[in-house]
């Protein structure tokens, strides 16, 4: 468990979700930023260049998928994890989503353990 200053961005339009994810990850020693919509998220990503993004898909305005594509345009190395309750995004589509740009997928609801291990995993296999 690498409790260092890795910067994680949590994007979710649900404030409670943002809050709990931030607290769980901070408790693990990560530096956590939150955004409640796509536009804010893109601004933060450009400004702070987080290493891992935990990205909800269904959001008002710019949705998660579009955020992912835009990030890939200027920062291909950023790790993006879809974290969503969106029903279509089940395992068969995972490959497609990854191809689209995401690196991993976590279905809501998920345990804190699964979230932390996924974030760790992403950081350990960071693209060079």
């Amino acid at each position, binding site marked *: 468990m690498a409790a260092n200053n890795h910067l994680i961005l949590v994007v979710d339009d*649900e404030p*409670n*979700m943002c809050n*709990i*994810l931030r*607290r*769980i990850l901070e*408790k693990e020693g990560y530096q956590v930023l939150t955004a409640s919509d796509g536009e804010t998220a893109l601004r933060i990503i450009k400004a702070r260049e987080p290493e891992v993004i935990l990205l909800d898909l*269904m959001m008002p305005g710019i949705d998660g998928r579009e955020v992912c594509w835009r990030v890939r345009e200027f920062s291909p190395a950023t790790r993006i994890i879809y974290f969503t*309750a*969106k*029903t*279509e995004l*089940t*395992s*068969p*589509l*995972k*490959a497609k989503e990854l191809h689209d740009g995401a690196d991993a997928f976590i*279905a*809501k*609801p*998920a*345990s*804190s353990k699964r*979230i932390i291990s996924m974030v760790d995993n992403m950081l350990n296999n960071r693209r060079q």
Partner: protein
Amino acid sequence: MREMKSNGKTKKHVTREPEALRQGAGVVERLTEEQRWAFEKWHDSLNTLENVMLIIDKDYNIESIDERGSKLLNKSKDEIIGQKCYQAIHGEDKPVQCCPLKQALTTDKVQSVERYEELSGRLFYMRYFPIPDNHGEVTRYSVLMRDMTENKPIEDLLKTVSINSPVGIYIVQDRKFCYVNYQFLEDTGYSEDELLGTDPLQIVMPEDRDMVRDHAIKMLKGRSSTQYEYRAITKDGDTRWALETVVPIMYKGRQATLGNYMDITDHKQMEIALRESEEFNSSLLKNSPYPVLVLNADTSIKYVNPALEKLTGFSRAELAGIKAPYPWLTPESLPKTRRQFKIAMQRGPKWFAELFQKKNGEYFWVEIRSTPVTYDGKFMYYMSSWVDITDRKQIEDALRREKERAERYLNVAGVMLATVNVDEEITLMNKKGCEILGYEAGELTSSNWFTTLVPERIRAEMKSVFRKLIAGENGPVIYYENPLLTRDGEERLIAFNNSVVKDTDGRVIGVLISGEDVTELRKTQEQLQHSRLLASLGEMTAGIAHEVNNPLGCILLYSELLASSDVPSQMKKDLKVIHEEAKRATKIMTDLLTYGRRTKSQTRRLNLYNPLKKVLEMRRYEQKVQNITVSTNLAAGPLHVNGDSSQLMQVFMNLMLNAEEALRASNGGNIIITTETHDEWARVRIADDGPGIPPKNLNQVFYPFFTTKEIGEGTGLGLSTCYGIITGHDGLIRAENNEMGGATFTIELPLARTQKNGNSPKKRKRRVGDNMTVTSKAGGSYGSK
């Protein structure tokens, strides 16, 4: 009258009466011996004849009478002699009206008079002979009376014959009528006085007189015996037809002619009428536009009329006397042999159509009406009248071809087409209709539409609809759907489009029924509807799951976070409950999403037996405990499909649990698992012998949250999850009840292509509703009773 000449000689006779015949005796004395001998002879013969002789003078005084006369009058001679004869004989005071003597005396002519007279009830022939005195003057009469009483019948007969004869009888002498009987007078209209002494030719029509004279002369001279006819003129000027014969006779000692005259006018008129009638009949036949043929009993041709000659081309001369087979018969014509023909001829009137051949080889159709003509029960001849129907036949043929064509059209029609007349009888049912209902072509014709085809429960209602339609109360066309019974008693749902059929006068003569079998369509539509319902249920549950998953995720994470912080142990326990319940909710949501997802999970080529065998292994112990026997009947070799092994395991597990659950109530039972391949499909059947699924539930077992378990025992998502997974694998799943009890769940999944092809199997073209079929043999199929 030769007798008159011998009058003088009769005086010899009176010598037997000396007082009265003194003068006469003198005459006799003057006779020669020869004459005397003749006289004696005559006298003897008179005696033999038992005649009565008396002599009367011109003043009617009886001068002499013989013994027989005295006896006859029952008086003595003295009493009689000197009496007036009318007094002595008739008992009258003066000469009677018809007294022949009086007649004789009042005429200058000297003649004898003959008479029949009745005296004292006896008939006498009386003859008065004048007796001249020496100066030749008649001064007295001798009277000869002969009793003819015994001869009367013969006389009567003679009289009767002459009087009552229906034939006119006359005698002509010296070309004058000298005798005519009553019938002749009747026939000619003349009286006796008018005819007697006249020329017989006066009654003959002037034009015929020469002919009559010739005939009569020929007959009289024995040169002819033929009776002849002529026209006679009656007194009233009428013309009558007479048939006559004449024969020469001796009448009153001289040659005379006896004529037999018969009025044959009536007969003649009948004859003329008959002849005219025959001529009329034969001219009818001759001029008839219809060919007429008359045959004799031996089949020979007796007569053909000109119309027949014209039609056949054979002349009367060619045909006369020809026996069957006739020249117009074709090889196909019946009857073929003469014998058959003869039998047919005697059999009674017939009416038939036949194809014949003309002399020039041309064929023609005739309609023949034939009848044997009998007289007194005896077969006389056979008459047949023909009508040339060649044109009509051609039209009929054209009509028949047209009808056949129409029928062909009807038969290729993809819908049932039937006509029903106002008596509810089926008059037509096309091929498609027969197919739908399971009847042979034509089998339904004349059957009652309602009793044969309409199920009893709706029959009365349908009849009333039909009646209204016929009565024009429903408008020209009505559309409705109703079941019809097939021959096997099964019901088919038919969509009807009916219209009334009217004749040219606008009268309703029946109903044209066009019907489409919509049984399968309706079944499919129902399944589609059901399938759509399930799909929308899936979408809804997915939506719900998504909305619930976010807060659920928060609850899970917050409870985890809180539990990991420094909180009292009781609070930790409570947080654990919150966490567990949230996890349970998560599980439900996951199942719901599986049902609603309807998308394939990550698939790979796998052997369907692997997940199945894993599940069987997992449940073996539990099934043993529950007294459940599982038997398998597996197709050989692997069943390769493209699928998600864990999801398919979930399906088998759910189905197995479902079967175990069904058998629990009966404390065990059997589960039979069968696999097979069918076309490009793998089929797995899991059957139990439990209570089966109530028919009302068959439609609902795949709905999410549908359960027959007590609340809290199950989520009711097991089968709906199976449905979601299998449809996500492009397969189908269905539930049905076994005929022997219990339920069977069947899964069909597309077989994976061999490695070489590499591709997944082509999706079988299936209707929308097919991916979930709900059937129940126990519950009956669509439209069941």
